[in-house]
């Protein structure tokens, strides 16, 4: 399978990365090189093989349903580019 420049632009939109015409063109070539490389996986017979879902066979650990943390609003917003009274500020989303 290979991608064209239209697909690259659509994927960039999905990934929320602005790309120029020139970027998209370069990426098309690079992505096709990588997709060409991974193509060989199709020759592997995987009938009856389960996909890996857990690297180490173990039951998922569950913690007790109790509050362990909190009251850290100032810590949470400390690194944000724009805040006001412990809220993250973003451009207007709803008119």
């Amino acid at each position, binding site marked *: 399978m290979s991608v064209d420049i239209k697909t690259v632009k659509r994927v960039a*939109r999905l990934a929320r990365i602005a790309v120029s015409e020139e970027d998209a063109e370069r990426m098309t070539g690079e992505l096709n090189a990588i997709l060409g490389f991974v193509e060989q996986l199709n020759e592997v017979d995987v009938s009856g093989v389960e996909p890996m879902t857990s690297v180490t066979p173990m039951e998922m650990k569950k913690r007790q349903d109790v509050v362990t943390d909190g009251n850290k609003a100032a810590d949470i917003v400390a690194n944000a580019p724009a805040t006001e009274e412990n809220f993250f500020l973003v451009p207007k989303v709803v008119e």
Partner: protein
Amino acid sequence: MSDLTQLTISQARAKLRAKEITATEITEAYLSAIERANPALNAYVAVTDDKARDMAKASDAKLARGEGGSLEGIPLGIKDLFGTEGIHTQACSHVLDGFKPRYESTVTANLWADGAVMLGKLNMDEFAMGSSNETSYYGPVVNPWRRSRLDTVVMPTTHQGDGGFVSAGGTRTARTLDNAQLVPGGSSGGSASAVSAFLCAGATATDTGGSIRQPAAFTGTVGIKPTYGRCSRWGIVAFASSLDQAGPIARDVRDAAILLKSMASVDPKDTTSVDRPVPDYEAAIGRPVKGMKVGIPREYRVEGMPEEIEALWQKGIAWLKDAGAEIVDISLLHTKYALPAYYIVAPAEASSNLARYDGVRYGLRVPGKDIVDMYEKTRAAGFGREVKRRIMIGTYVLSAGYYDAYYLQAQKVRNLIKRDFETAFAAGVDVILTPATPSAAFGIADEDMAADPVKMYLNDIFTVTVNMAGLPGIAVPAGLDAKGLPLGLQLIGRPFDEETLFQTAHVIEQAAGTFQPEKWW
């Protein structure tokens, strides 16, 4: 006083406990070494000298009371991927500009609890994506090793005045260092370069496809990626969550064992952290390997592999045989599919993990006309080319209609890779010996690598299988190539059997010796 930076961790530990040296002295020795060397090597992106001095002082107080922890007063470098409270943590990306977390990663917290001293944050490939440390926003790291050539020098008959010597002529051989700068490997290139150049006693690193073992092999250092679930991933910037593991890079096998013992723990904050006590890895060093079954996988004999790598592998086999191990040929049938499967699984997980960098909660923000425009501009400006490439691949393989063909297929192949290892171990193989990398360190801005991303990816061909199967793997220096560059061997073990890796790697180290670059910086 001799240069304190030359001491291994085990030597420094003994001298600190015996009060022959102080934590402050050894910390100062490293800080001045960093000041001198970092402009040439670019291994550190942030030096925390004030904090290092405070921590060293606290260690000296503890040592004076005879209360020191297992790493009391040992100065370490920390890869920029580890969250360190109040200190530069950017995964060497522009998108995390100015980020100083309000928390400490579990691995580094373990090290500080044991008394280690933080020297600073180490350079790396952006978000750990790369095999040469050239994708860092902070520029490439330089390998302290350089190529050299052996020349026959004709010695003229000379008379040196002022009571000097008289040379009788004749010839001698001399190694001449080449000026070309080489990469230290990646993604933990800063860690490997700093350890190799004596800019820290040991370093933390992480490994998603080979990022500890490949740079260790390129710099003549020891690097271990433990079993998935052995070190907590909590507080480490995520790349590919089902593959990422932290581990140490150190100057010898014993130091790596000492560091891993401190870094590893059972952590309720990481649901994939495995509930098993951490053994005393150092105790495994020196145990005989007599009777041990060492597997040699025929699929690792890849096309185009330099003869020197094959010769090194044979040397490793001979050393272990001499030590009484039994060598058996094994087959790991799906080896060649590990790298392509990795380049689906890792980008897929990365595209999801890196979705959080949107200019809202931390790091860089580039204003836009609306919120989506802001996201797109922030991510376009904040991520480098390689990171964008991987996010794009990951987004594509997870997009509607392609998930089954790519991601699901790759996860099935991954189970087959794991099964190959399980079959070998079930047949009684204790440890598997392979080369660590298909070549020695290459040049910075290598044109072939720059032109074709897949060529760069092939660096991880021997290491990536281990991440796909979640197994432990160690890279140990085994010799120098004809150009005087270090080459490493890799040992792969059963899940949670890091002890066998330390035990076997030590036998190789005893036979091969340790390697230091000639100082030019």
